């Protein structure tokens, strides 16, 4: 009963790849920006905060369009990256990953920032008196204590990336096998007569994936918390 066309399987596999890659690539930036917003005090902090949150409030299609006009093949930046670095985003799955990463970024930063803000700064002071400079303090104290929040942030970003539609389809279109993710495949299927049952199957698959991701992150976060407190 549950048979999917090869094209649909491709969409599922591509979605997982795009979501995983975008989450992993966003992570170091997410941690850095979250730490900066949680601990830093500098001119333009609220501006940075606003910029990071933009994708959350801007229509996804607008974000996708901005990507298209800045990173498309004919745009200066896109042409530069293609010619000198060999990196092409437009109409490639890498572009889908970039769009998903940007859309998911605010959620990731928010979760990590909250968990860093919740850490007792006095522990960081204690590390300093023991000879740890700020970099080591961050790596040995702040980061491990923020781990549950980092896991939550990764999970949110992964789920958001799986569901991304507007920015992706605007930026990299809907090319089967290259940029057609689950969301785009569902959209395509319900446009054609008789595609409903296949669309429903993809919907069920998305539910299963998201549910599994939620349970896994819940379990990981609980384990991390328990480990931190030595239970």
């Amino acid at each position, binding site marked *: 009963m549950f048979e999917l066309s090869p094209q649909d399987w491709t969409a599922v596999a591509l979605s997982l790849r795009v979501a995983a890659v975008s989450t992993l690539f966003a992570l170091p930036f997410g941690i850095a920006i979250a730490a900066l917003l949680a601990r830093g005090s500098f001119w333009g902090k609220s501006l940075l905060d606003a910029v990071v949150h933009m994708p959350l409030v801007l229509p996804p299609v607008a974000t996708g369009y901005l990507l298209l006009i800045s990173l498309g093949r004919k745009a200066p930046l896109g042409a530069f990256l293609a010619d000198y670095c060999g990196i092409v985003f437009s109409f490639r799955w890498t572009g889908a990953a970039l769009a998903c990463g940007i859309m998911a970024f605010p959620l990731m930063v928010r979760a990590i920032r909250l968990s860093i803000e919740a850490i007792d700064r006095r522990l960081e002071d204690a590390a*300093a008196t023991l000879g740890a400079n700020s970099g080591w303090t961050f790596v040995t104290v702040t980061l491990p204590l923020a781990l549950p929040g980092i896991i939550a942030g990764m999970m949110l970003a992964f789920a958001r990336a799986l569901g991304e539609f507007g920015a992706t389809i605007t930026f990299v279109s809907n090319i089967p096998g290259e940029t057609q993710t689950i969301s785009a495949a569902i959209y395509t299927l319900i446009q054609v007569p008789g595609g409903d049952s296949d669309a429903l199957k993809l919907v069920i698959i998305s539910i299963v994936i998201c549910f599994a991701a939620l349970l896994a992150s819940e379990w990981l976060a609980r384990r991390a918390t328990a480990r931190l407190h030595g239970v």
Partner: protein
Amino acid sequence: MAGTACNGTPARGIAMLVVQVEKRLGEFFSLKVSLTSESRATALFGASGAGKTSLINMIAGLLKPDHGRIELDGEVLFDDLRYVDVPTSQRRIGYVFQEGRLFPHFSVRRNLDYGRWMSGHAPDSAAFNHVVELLDIGHLLDRRPGKLSGGERQRVAVGRALLMRPRLLLLDEPLASLDAGRKRDILPYLERLRDNAQVPMIYVSHNAAEVKRIASRVVCLEAGRVRIAGGPELLDAAQADMLA
């Protein structure tokens, strides 16, 4: 200039500490303290809110004075006129906090070892065992701080500060969070520390009985100023005064 200070062996546990600082800490409160300490165990004594913790935070580098100068064994740690402000991590001043502040994600062993790890010294099992024995914490090494009692936690905190090989040890009311019975249990360890560990200490407390047992010199703080300084016998007079 910091030659003697850096090899970790100031003369037989006596540190020459010169502090002369000013700091506004609020609209109606300012700290203006000038003191020299040249004894093995100096107590900073005073009521809560007298500025004791602020003062040792400045010595440790956790709080920046508005003006002044802090010098330890001839090395200038802070001097606003010469733009010197050695970061906390490079001061090599051990600090035992009121609430211990052990790292919850490390075992007791890793907590004790943290200072050595961060300073990049080779492991020194003799020093480690000596401190573990001195504080009687050998049976706790594999536990997490979350599973320790208040008294055990403070002993581990003292051990952690000692094992970074400090030039000076600051203790901020290390017994304040403990009940009377626990205090009696820990005081002997602190006396052993003073007599054996060869690290000069500054002991912050508002408890005269504790101070009399630990300190050989007492500095009384009141409302951000040094009121009087001298031997522990001062306390009897100071207490009588406070009651009056």
